[in-house]
């Protein structure tokens, strides 16, 4: 399988390519291109998650749409909405709002809400043009004397 000088028997040395070496090289190139093609880049859904501002929280509390997600149901402004009707409900609430600050949707999740449910609901919110803001429970350390 090695290639190298091959004696022709007449005193002169000729270097000859062996056919199976070319096959080997072609196979290596094939593997190289398969590896490059198989390392596919990741793709995903980008999401802007602005951090909550404590100063504005109470001021905008009554103005923003609130969506609460649990394991089994979704509620909009404290009213339960079936998942099938969620898109239309949110589209109606966001209909006349053109400014980004008016399209803020505060998303609150129960601790046992699965990620798949969260992705589905937030996907619907983004599709109707809502700007998602997460409402998270704050943890504080309190010293007890």
């Amino acid at each position, binding site marked *: *399988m*090695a*290639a*190298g*000088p091959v*004696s022709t028997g007449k005193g002169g*040395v000729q270097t000859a*390519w062996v056919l199976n*070496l070319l096959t*080997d*090289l072609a196979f*290596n190139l094939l*593997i*190289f291109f398969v*590896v490059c093609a198989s*390392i596919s*880049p*990741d*793709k*995903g*859904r*980008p*999401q*802007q*998650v*602005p*951090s909550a501002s404590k100063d504005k929280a109470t001021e905008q509390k009554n103005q923003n749409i609130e969506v609460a*997600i649990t394991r089994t149901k979704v509620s909009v402004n404290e009213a339960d909405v079936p998942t099938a009707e969620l898109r239309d409900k949110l589209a109606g609430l966001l209909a006349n709002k053109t400014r980004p600050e008016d399209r803020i949707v505060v998303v609150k*999740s*129960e*601790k*046992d*809400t*699965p*990620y*798949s449910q*969260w*992705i*589905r609901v937030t*996907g619907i919110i*983004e*599709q109707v043009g809502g700007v998602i803001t*997460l409402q*998270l429970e704050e943890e504080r350390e309190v010293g007890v004397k």
Partner: protein
Amino acid sequence: MRFKRRKIEIVPPYVAMADIAFNLVLFFIMMAKTQDDSHIQWEPAKDKAAVTKQIDNAKVSISVDRDNKVYLNGLQLGLRELADKVTLELGDLPPADRTVLLKIHKDTLAATFEPIMEAVSQAGGEVVHVIDDEQ
């Protein structure tokens, strides 16, 4: 009867060595390009008609597997240390390069994934959820 002794020249197989060198190059390319997160077992969430975009060379990847373990670039760590580590990884990168991939198992609960998103937001990263298109 006298037989002539043929002189056998021993020549290194140069072309085969080039083959081996090429294989080594391939090996190092593969090791350099991929992050070692093949051991993390997770299933992406599905979303209908999700608008996804291709992410090239994200510097930071946070994964949550089916056992609720959190990994940053393939290394396991706790939720409390996540914000600092992400800040360290992102450093002074420009806004366009501060993408953080979230590869979260579909059954992970909000108690786990919400602090992760908060940590990324605190570190100034841009969250990208790696999900499957539901068909």
